[in-house]
């Protein structure tokens, strides 16, 4: 039954551009999708390892800038007589570069801060995002600073001369973001159920005990940070090539806060949490924009957020899951998994669900 639900859900998502002809709505969905990817990447750290990155937007922005610069090309005056010239590359190379560069910085920040962890990691990530923002603002030779990078090309796929598709319009971009979302989801779902994923969850639950069973604490956390940063970088790259203009405001703290809100309200440490949170807080501002003046919008946004956190402290997904279980009893799935011997992949699925409920 679960499988059917998944396929139906996917079919629905893929069908949206067919019946939804309003391009503005598609734009909202594309934006929400990009933020969902970023929120999923944050959830890997915040939800599964328990480490709060309050500078996650840095990885998003680094991915965005790296991808834009690689696809636009740039030149840097190194000495008076020598200028380093980087010729424009295809956009997919840029996206890849964005992922790699963001992943590298994830490794760097992880290496520096995970020896101490906790509050220190939070501080290091905040400062890191601020430093990156200042660099983007002031290194005008490279980033154009507040003048922004303009005319960033959209993605082109295909075989040159034979068949090509450039992602100018909303519909192909919608599918691009949707496919990336699904890929990110699969990566995280597999990772969480892997050996490394177990190690990450064990660290969140009881670090001294995790160390005593032989988990390499720093290494596991750094690996999680690399995957998380690379995924945020991918989201940033998609953002750049769909919006096609980028300025240092992409590094503003408010975007990190938005991601954290998406993860927390959706349900941290659950696979579906960031998706639900991302949909709500990706679409909500746009809905509010139509019904209220900007000042009222922010107040309503805030009130809705407080209501969710207050009434559903574990997030929406865990609350729904436990409501479902109460309503339809532990019957069906529960009893089945009780009698089922051996820890199959299904078992870990059940466990992850229940874990989400309480984590």
């Amino acid at each position, binding site marked *: 039954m679960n499988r059917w639900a998944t396929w139906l859900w996917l079919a629905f998502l893929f069908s949206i551009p067919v019946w939804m002809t309003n391009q503005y709505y598609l734009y909202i969905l594309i934006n929400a999708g990009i933020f969902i990817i970023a929120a999923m990447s944050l959830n890997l750290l915040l939800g599964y390892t328990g480490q709060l990155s309050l500078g996650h937007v840095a990885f998003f922005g680094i991915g965005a800038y790296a991808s834009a610069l690689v696809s636009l090309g740039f030149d840097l005056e190194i000495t008076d007589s020598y200028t380093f010239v980087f010729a424009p590359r295809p956009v997919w190379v840029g996206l890849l570069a964005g992922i790699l560069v963001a992943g590298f910085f994830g490794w760097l920040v992880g290496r520096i801060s995970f020896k101490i962890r906790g509050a220190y990691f939070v501080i290091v990530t905040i400062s890191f995002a601020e430093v990156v923002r200042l660099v983007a603002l002031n290194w005008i030779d490279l980033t154009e600073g507040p003048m922004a990078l303009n005319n960033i090309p959209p993605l082109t796929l295909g075989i040159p001369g034979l068949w090509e598709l450039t992602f100018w319009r909303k519909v192909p971009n919608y599918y691009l973001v949707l496919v990336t979302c699904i890929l990110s989801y699969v990566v995280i779902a597999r990772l969480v159920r892997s050996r490394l994923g177990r190690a990450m969850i064990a660290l969140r639950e*009881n670090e*001294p*005990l995790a160390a*005593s*069973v*032989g988990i*390499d604490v720093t290494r596991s956390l750094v690996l999680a940070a690399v995957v998380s940063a690379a995924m945020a970088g991918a989201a940033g790259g998609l953002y750049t090539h769909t919006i096609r203009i980028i300025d240092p405001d992409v590094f503003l703290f408010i975007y990190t806060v938005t991601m954290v809100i998406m993860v927390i309200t959706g349900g941290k440490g659950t696979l579906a949490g960031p998706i639900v949170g991302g949909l709500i807080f990706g679409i909500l501002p746009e809905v509010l924009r139509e019904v209220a003046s900007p000042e009222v919008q922010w107040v309503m946004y805030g009130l809705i957020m407080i209501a969710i956190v207050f009434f559903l402290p574990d997030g929406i997904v865990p609350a729904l899951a436990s409501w479902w279980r109460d309503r339809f009893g532990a019957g069906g799935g529960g009893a089945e998994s009780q009698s089922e011997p051996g820890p199959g992949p299904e*078992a870990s699925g059940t466990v992850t669900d*229940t874990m989400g409920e309480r984590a």
Partner: protein
Amino acid sequence: MLEIEGLDCRYGKVRAVRDLTLEVREGELVTLIGANGAGKTTTLKAISGILRPAAGRIAFDGEDITRASARAILAKGIAHCPEGRHVFPYMSVQENLDMGCYLRRDPGGIARDLRKVFERFPVLEERRRQMAGTLSGGEQQMLAIGRALMSRPRLMLFDEPSLGLAPNLVETTFEIIAEIRAQGVTVLMVEQNAYAALELCDRSYLLESGAVTLTGSGAELLDNPHVKEAYLGG
């Protein structure tokens, strides 16, 4: 099997363990007894590599492990069953046991050892799908012991296994530890319940203010007037 010489451990300026020397021979059940804050837990942490000693030498099978990582020490066959029923509360019983063999790569051996753990603790098999945090205190203790056994240790370190357990469970826990030893696992146990610890062990060390003040067989210490007065209630 385990030799400790001149061990010194500090928390900042506080010397928690001073010039401690002890030995555990293969197949023995040795206990460390003493009051709160005598340095018993610190000693175990130093052995398992969770804590870096300030000075001294720890050797396992003649090999220096003083500066080895917790992982390396575990891989050599020393398992630590920490104080206070340490389990991963939001993982199932099965997953907790899986974590115990995190470093092992022999599926056949793991399956056999899992079988053994379930034979020893049938309740864990009944509850293998249940979250560890929902188990009773005694069951969590069994799970912690089971998990430590899953690493197939040659030396097991127990830290206050009876702490906070109901009296009948205390007895069961000590029986389990005796049984583990009977199957050839060497045991070093820290225990505040001096009487039970001395009854159970081959040899014991009395720690006071971070230093060994007395050592001998369990019977010898039970007869010692100082031990009687200070630790056995006269």
